[in-house]
């Protein structure tokens, strides 16, 4: 299978908002390649009769009744916010100036 390229790592880093140095891109490309290669071995044993699994427990339909439960107070909810204003989470400018 094709290896993970430097460009792909840069793309992922960007999507994950991670700032990586040039040498890190190379470093992680190799590591990610190894990890994906290892995980890909699952495909060797998976067959049509093995359903894809996204959860280790053989459970379905775990649901709760539509009943209101206590929420946090606004003070509690905002207690870890780096900044707040008008009882709301304050976040930096979303769109950069063009």
């Amino acid at each position: 299978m094709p290896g993970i390229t430097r460009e792909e790592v840069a793309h992922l880093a960007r999507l994950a908002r991670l700032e990586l140095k040039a040498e890190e891109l190379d470093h992680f490309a190799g590591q990610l390649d190894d990890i994906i290669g290892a995980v890909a071995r699952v495909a060797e044993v998976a067959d049509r009769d093995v359903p894809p699994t996204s959860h280790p427990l053989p459970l379905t339909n775990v649901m709760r009744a539509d009943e209101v439960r206590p929420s946090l107070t606004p003070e509690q909810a905002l207690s870890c916010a780096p900044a707040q204003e008008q009882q709301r989470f304050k976040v930096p400018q979303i769109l950069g100036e063009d």
Partner: protein
Amino acid sequence: MTVTTDLVSYEDALASYDPVMGLEVHVELGTRTKMFCGCSTELGAEPNSQTCPTCLGLPGSLPVVNAVGVESAIKIGLALHCEIAEWCRFARKNYFYPDMPKNFQTSQYDEPIAFNGYLDVQLEDGEVFRVEIERAHMEEDTGKSTHVGGATGRIHGASHSLLDYNRAGIPLIEIVTKPIVGAGDRAPEVAKAYVAELRELIRALGVSEARMEMGQMRCDVNLSLMPKGSETFGTRSETKNVNSLRSVERAVRFEVQRHAAVLGDGGTIVQETRHFHEDDGTTTSGRVKEEAEDYRYFPEPDLVPVAPSREWVEELRAALPELPRVRRNRLREEWGISEHDMQSILNAGAIDPIVATIEAGADPVSARKWWMGELARNANESGRSLDELPITPEQVARVTALVVDGSLNDKLARQVIEGVLAGEGDPDAVVEKRGLKVVSDEGALGVAVDEAIAGNAAIADKIRGGKVAAVGALVGAVMKATRGQADAARVKELILEKLGVSEG
């Protein structure tokens, strides 16, 4: 930010191109709690008072799906004639944006709970157009942003933004159509009729009030043009958050004209999101994306699969209410009215009030007359919907009963309605307080009739001479003398009797 957009006339655009539409509608469910946690969904709460570790995305919290949310999704799927998945999962849609504190939206990706359906919509002239449904899936709403420092709350030019997460996690069902082709010049009308019909359907199912003006139902409009005769779709634009029926129609129309102008000039359509402007009905380009969206969907590991049993699905199917279009056609036949009249009643939001008034004992003709006349006018003038008027169908039915038994005539009945709307109490209380009773005291009426005849001798002679039609003038005189409180039919009888003339 003034952008002038070249347009060609709608007729010219349609002469050369066929529009293809794709409509994505988000419906906020009316559940008591959020989709994945027990926080209340009540509107109007103080900011950030309905949040918890799960909907704030705090470490260590775990979601559990709302059973009513799943049930509502299945009901919507069934009403749209969809297949219901035997087994499906949630997926994480990853993106960084402050409206979603988890940095992903819990949604469904390649395993929607409902798929492959259709909705028949009826156009104003009665033509039925079938809109194919691709899928309906479950997801959650985002928080509400307030942009500070820019002009009129716009994100452009804002210095910072404020987030209220009360809405984050409220259940949403996203309903996606297959490409709608073949609507031709009726594309805007089909789009509007589809969203209107979907709204009726959602309300009939009782899963949401689907009030577009409150953001409980929102529409994204995808549109492309292909040259007439071609079967290859053109590049599409996606106009986001078109939030009224009228806007849906206008957005489609505008995009048809804009695309045609670009293509006609030999240009190419940029695949982009666009914003719709309510004020002038135009769209403008959204932010140009630096790269294609890459949400890296993967199955949500914190939620187990949803596998609705066939018994449950069949139970829900059996309990589906009569679908709105079927109900409308049934009522239309029962009431003996035209497609056009029914459409007006639907547009006025008067179907349910009229049905309730008939159920409360009124005859269909009177029930329609009041709701589509006096009450519709009052609602219009006061900027309210019919169901917001301070009068109940039972009260309207009582007024019609008073008309039928002769204690009120139409003119007095209007005053009674006016009194009820003004908060003066029940119809009977208004009749009492305002002294609105038809004068049925034959003695008093007789005097008024005699006076009218004496005061209009020439007309009386005409009537004696056989011109019975002239009686109207005398009836008018009596009505005037009794300040409208006489039963006009009885007055006419009395006059003819006294003049020794019989009708017909």
